[in-house]
């Protein structure tokens, strides 16, 4: 492998990893605060992609301007799901929560199938095909934009969690929900907010992927596996772990896709997954037994 090829692959891997990070942050945030493993996470991504697709094709919006609609749209969608599906399962056994979110995932896929058909749809605009040439390095403009936007959103989330009262309340709830209630924190409201926030971030990731990938009702299943591997790798509930884990998985996937074969992607995830569980079950940034960190 030449140096130039190495750099080319690394760049592609990092750019892909940024989006993986954004997909995974929503999942880990929701798990960390609410202790809910959201099996419908991939479908939230799918909803974000379809919303973006129709904003661009039907409403003729620029795909990046569409983010301004997708984020609040998915936030509201997340609120709705939390109040109708998730809230009744809080405090119930894990089985109930698994059934609820797996059921939601099936319902959302079926609804998408009815509404949009099984057709695979993609955007074909000048910007989706634009390339950026940096000397001998060539990268896709949508990839760069997705990465930059993902990092900006992650930075905004870090600032929010780290510096604001509500952000602190979210972290406090993740660490000890009954102690949080004694601080005057409205824990059910924090759950609602966290779920909606996680959904909005995932929707944003979907909208950022739309110029790169194509959308179909089952697109979520392709990405949800990555998100779970990233979250376990980073440490369940750790937002910084999801960021680092996303970048790592992006790089590994790009290199293994080149050296071995892209078809083996899922097998590679699975091997990483197993290695983490054996070597460091708490993940890179997780704390053993607590499965949570400050941010």
């Amino acid at each position, binding site marked *: 492998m030449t140096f130039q090829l190495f750099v080319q692959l690394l760049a592609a891997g990092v750019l892909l990893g940024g989006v993986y990070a954004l997909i995974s942050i929503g999942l880990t945030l929701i798990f960390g605060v609410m202790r809910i493993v959201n099996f419908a996470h991939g479908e939230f991504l799918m909803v974000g992609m379809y919303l973006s697709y129709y904003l661009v094709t039907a409403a003729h919006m620029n795909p990046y301007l569409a983010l301004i609609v997708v984020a609040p749209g998915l936030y509201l969608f997340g609120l709705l799901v939390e109040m109708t599906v998730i809230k009744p399962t809080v405090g119930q056994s894990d089985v109930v929560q698994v059934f609820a979110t797996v059921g939601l995932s099936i319902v959302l896929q079926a609804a998408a199938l009815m509404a949009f058909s099984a057709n695979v749809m993609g955007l074909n605009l000048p910007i989706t095909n634009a390339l950026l040439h940096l000397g001998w390095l060539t990268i896709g403009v949508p990839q760069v934009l997705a990465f930059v936007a993902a990092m900006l959103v992650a930075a905004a989330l870090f600032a929010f969690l780290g510096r604001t*009262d509500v952000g*602190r*309340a979210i972290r406090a709830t993740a660490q000890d929900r009954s102690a949080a209630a004694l601080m*005057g*924190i409205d824990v*059910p409201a924090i759950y609602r907010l966290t779920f909606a926030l996680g959904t909005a971030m995932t929707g944003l990731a979907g909208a950022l992927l739309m110029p790169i990938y194509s959308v179909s009702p089952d697109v979520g299943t392709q990405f949800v596996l990555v998100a779970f591997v990233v979250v376990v790798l980073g440490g369940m509930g750790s937002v910084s772990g999801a960021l680092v884990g996303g970048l790592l998985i992006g790089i590994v996937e790009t290199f293994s896709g080149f050296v071995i074969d892209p078809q083996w992607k899922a097998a590679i995830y699975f091997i990483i997954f197993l290695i983490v569980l054996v070597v460091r079950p708490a993940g890179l940034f997780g704390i053993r037994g607590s499965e949570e960190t400050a941010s």
Partner: protein
Amino acid sequence: MLEVRGLAAGYGENAVLFDVSFDVPEGSLTVIVGANAAGKTTTCRAISGEIETRGGTIRFGGEQIEREPSNRRVERGLVQIPEGRRLFPFMTVEENLLLGSYAHRARAARQEALDEVFTLLPRVAERRRQLAGSLSGGEQSMVAIGRGLMARPRLLVMDEPTLGLAPIFVERTFEIVAEIRKHGVTVLLVEQNVKRALSLCDRAYVLEHGQVVMQGAGEQLLGDEGLRRAYLGM
């Protein structure tokens, strides 16, 4: 200020409190003592709203609050330092204190409260940038008290603040309790150091198997034969 009448509570099938009634008058230091598993912590949890009551009423400042969520009670100035301190271990001491003043009633005067806490508890000020989970038990208990004071309590409920502390910190805790009272905060204190607590308080209640079995002025209970034998081993 706090009136508890006929309080019943429990966990699942397990009934813990049967008929607990007591008063915490404004400005007083009221103490609850009782053996392990008597139901003291359960009483505190019912007051804070962490668990639901199964009977009876809780009034705070004349208003019935036993159906209100915890956060509303905190907004009323009913603040609790829970058993075992329950700090947020992965946050700094300062962040723990700031969370103490999360309630709207406390946020406006946050800086002032922080200065007061640091004056009262200089040790906490020294540790402000450290993770709460990395402190010693004694230091953690000081942070827990500071965090409670940050909420600008009208009534501060303290559930065994001296539990597991070295004697020097036990002594310091009682000094701080006395200091808090001087600032006009009403205190409900649950204690296992019966002698020390009774000599400090205005009024005390003895809890046994989920019921109040004895009550009176602190000095009066200290002189009681039966209580001395049961709790002080004298």
